[in-house]
């Protein structure tokens, strides 16, 4: 695997994390503000988004490997 390819893969990984996790965090933050619940939804949503993004990374990694 060339260094350029791995650079784009790394940028893709960081973009997946950068979009999904803050989105989940923000969603939980807004829900907490509306429902007046302490950091319950924030923690649930952020943990779920971490797991979701890890799942997406590994799924896309699998697809990439099958194609190459």
């Amino acid at each position, binding site marked *: 695997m060339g260094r350029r390819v791995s650079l784009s893969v790394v940028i893709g990984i*960081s973009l997946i994390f950068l979009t999904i996790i803050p989105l989940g965090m923000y969603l939980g933050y807004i829900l907490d503000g509306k429902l007046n619940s302490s950091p319950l939804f924030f923690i649930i949503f952020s943990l779920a988004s971490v797991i979701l993004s890890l799942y997406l990374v590994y799924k896309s*990694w699998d697809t990439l490997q099958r194609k190459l």
Partner: protein
Amino acid sequence: MGYSAKKTLKEVSVAISFIFIAFVARWLDFFYYNSPDKPGSLIFSKLVGSLLVVLAVSILNLKWGEVGFTKKNFLRYLYYGLILLFVYIFLFYFLKPYLFYLFKFSIPEFSLSFSFPYYDRNYILELSMLTLNMVCEEGLFRGILQTRLKKIVPLFYAILIQSILFGLWHTTWALYNNQGFFSFYNLGYFLYTFGFGMIVGYIFEWTGTLTIPIIIHFFAGDNPFSISFFKDGAENITSVRDGMVVFAVSLTMIIIFLFISYTLLKKKVIIKKRK
């Protein structure tokens, strides 16, 4: 694709996800516990980050020396680190604000202030928070992420990605101070922390240990003794022109500092290359 590249990509994704888990703890600390206003501010998220560093080292089967926490050449790097610390303070605390004021056509009023530590509970809590902060931030960004990235990506991009994430990590301060994400305050802060990430990343790359980064980060980056040379304190950006001036001046300072540290550590670099 080789086995080692696949393994390193796994390590990179673990490192980035750990940074985001630490970021979640940081957000919790800022916006739910409002801890910057409380004693031992942000100590919870720093503790979580330090534990994540330990966890990452253990689950990725790394050695502490590989991550940068070594005693190797400690005294020598302490010596160089203190020299670079004074250079950093001169460049970024004295020359940068001075040039900024000059470009704004105003003459700054000098007043050296330096708060000596007073030993009460709050200050000790804050110092311990800053000590944990060294393990957390240096370990997560430089120690684990940068060393993983540089195995599969050209060195410059490894340091760039690491310092962009380091800059984004610090934008929570602007949101906490109600300045907005797309504000001049946030831009200035992002650029400063981004430049700091670049500087420290290169120094870590040249020396191979986190001794100098930790010294500079602890005494100058976080400034626990609140050193300042001017009465007005930090420069405040209010227009696009100010932003451009700050950008140009900071870029110059970063290049000067990198040049000085490279010439100072040149011997070490040559020895490392020969190996």
